[in-house]
């Protein structure tokens, strides 16, 4: 469905990290995944972007062998997740939506334990745990009980645990949801460092800025459908180029919207005190907008021609906004009822 630029030859020859075909998963009446097909090579970061309830976690659970799909096929690192789950588990790491670390163990003990469960010997587990804790910058706190960690540190520890088995493909489900903005930036930097080492990563997020910053390729998912896919730039181009964005005074908003409607050609949007119209004719649309405002004796606070943001893409595709990354809402603690219900 998506026209994509041909990958470079060396990319094309690389092995697929993930390949799914028409994955369907329903829970009672809820269709969580409605025929999802995604595919990406090793060595890239794939960002799955979608609002709450879009099906992101469900897809991760299928790919990490936690959930059998009702229909469709899925391969991770070239291995069928349904036919051969144990082999897949040897090659993956998962950090779920909620940090699955034990508060009464130390950071080191947590990571070492996961290493042992990856069948590393006691010494190997220890060495690997030290290595990942060092990379994740938790070595100083390694011997403290996790109950003394902040939320951001717990997420980092969870990330460390998911990497201790040196997985071929790493899955991070909403790695920064529910943590404070400062820790979020730290975590982004960490993830960037990790992937610069060539780790293959599938991450899900509700935040555009996160997907934009971390991913080589972005898939937008909504209501169990993959509705668009491509690099951040491809997605923005697909919206049809630039937009004109006009900021106005509060009291001018209604009048300005009325004045600009002919310029927008029906596609005008308002967000608070800013008005966005597609720049169908580029700078001429900008000039037209200035003229119309002038005629209406309205003075904009700011007017600019800009490339569309991922949010514009999201809105045009789904009809609603994505979450605003600037103020991540703090999610309530997980409750197991939903997770486990069938």
């Amino acid at each position, binding site marked *: 469905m998506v026209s994509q630029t041909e990958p470079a030859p060396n990319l094309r020859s690389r*092995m697929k990290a993930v390949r799914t075909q028409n994955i369907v998963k329903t829970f009672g009446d809820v269709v969580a995944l409605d025929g999802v097909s995604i595919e990406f090579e090793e060595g890239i970061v794939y960002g799955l972007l979608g609002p709450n309830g879009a099906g992101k976690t469900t897809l991760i*659970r299928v790919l*990490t*062998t*936690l*959930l*059998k799909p009702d229909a469709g096929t899925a391969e991770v*690192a*070239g*291995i069928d997740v349904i036919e*051969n789950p*144990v*082999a897949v*588990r*040897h090659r*993956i*790491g*998962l950090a*779920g*939506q*909620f*940090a*699955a670390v*034990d508060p*009464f*163990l130390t950071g080191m*003990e947590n990571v070492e*334990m*996961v290493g*042992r*469960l*990856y*069948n590393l010997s006691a010494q190997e587990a220890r060495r690997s745990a030290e290595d990942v804790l060092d990379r994740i910058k938790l070595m100083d706190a390694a011997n403290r*009980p996790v109950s003394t960690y902040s939320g951001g540190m717990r997420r980092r520890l969870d990330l460390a*645990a998911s990497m201790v*088995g040196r997985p071929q493909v790493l899955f991070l489900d909403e790695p920064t949801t529910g943590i404070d903005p400062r820790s979020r930036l730290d975590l982004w930097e960490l993830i960037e460092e990790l992937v610069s080492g060539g780790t293959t990563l599938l991450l899900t997020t509700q935040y555009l800025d996160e997907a934009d910053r971390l991913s080589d390729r972005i898939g937008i998912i909504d209501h169990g459908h993959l509705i668009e896919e491509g690099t951040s730039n491809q997605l923005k181009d697909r919206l049809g180029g630039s937009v004109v964005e006009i900021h106005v005074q509060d009291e001018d908003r209604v009048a300005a919207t009325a004045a600009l409607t002919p310029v927008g050609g029906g596609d005008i949007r308002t967000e608070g005190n800013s008005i966005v119209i597609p720049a169908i004719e580029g700078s001429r649309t900008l000039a037209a907008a200035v003229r119309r405002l002038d005629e209406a004796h309205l003075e904009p606070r700011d007017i600019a021609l800009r490339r569309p943001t991922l949010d514009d893409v999201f809105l045009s595709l789904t009809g609603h906004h994505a979450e605003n990354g600037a103020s991540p809402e703090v999610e309530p603690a*997980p*409750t*197991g*009822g939903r*997770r*486990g*219900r*069938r």
Partner: protein
Amino acid sequence: MTVTAEQAHRVSPGAAAVHTAVIAKRNVLRVIRLPQLLLFSTVQPVMFLLLFNYVFGGAINLGGAPISGSSAYINWLIPGILVQTAVFGATATALGLTEDLTAGVIDRFRSLPMARSAVLAGRTIADLVRNTFVNSLMLVVGFLMGWRFEQGFFKMLLGVAIALLFGYAFSWVMAAIGLITKTPEAAQSAGFLPIFPLVFASSVFVPTDTMPGWLQAFADNQPITVIANTVRSLMIPEEALAFLDLDQGALIAQSLAWIVGIIVVFGYLSVRQYKKSVG
């Protein structure tokens, strides 16, 4: 990508044993590092012991059983309390599992190349370790209250072991309940549902022969009476066995049958439920 046979198939038994030990260690550490948890799991059985012995003890008629003179009831009670404590303690299995389920820990475990049975076995083994500690403490308190073992140290130890093994078997019942109920709150109440009638309609606290006929029929044939009688038969004076109509050898055999039977049936059910309930 080629898949080696070892990876394609189940986890080897050796690896499964390591995984079980790793999980058991984690769960034991939890008990050790949260002393409040251990404190409250010991306070309750000690309270039962004190209340039953000093509040009801004087009023309970053992029919003149030649158990141990003036402090006869404590010698009736201790074997029963050991079983009760082990069975109550088994509810920790349901609680611990549901806590792991809700915290997403089980998801992590299930994404790892580890044995499916290890999460459950590691949990039940850790609860056995904790139960062993609590029951040892009960013996010390019981000793101070006048309890004595009359058939030698080895038989006493065998009795304690049977109570603990039954508690272990009951942990598998609790594992199944936890995996079905899925939340700690539900597991807490559901876990005690089978426990109360089994523990109280039994010979744990009182002889069954004063119960109405229909209840006595149930009490005499359910596993907790069998286990409590077995433990008792290994601790009270030998001359009391005939008086109380306890056949030690037969009781031990029945106890082991119950223990093995429960582990097999509920072990199977739990592992099956574990595989499907979480995905």
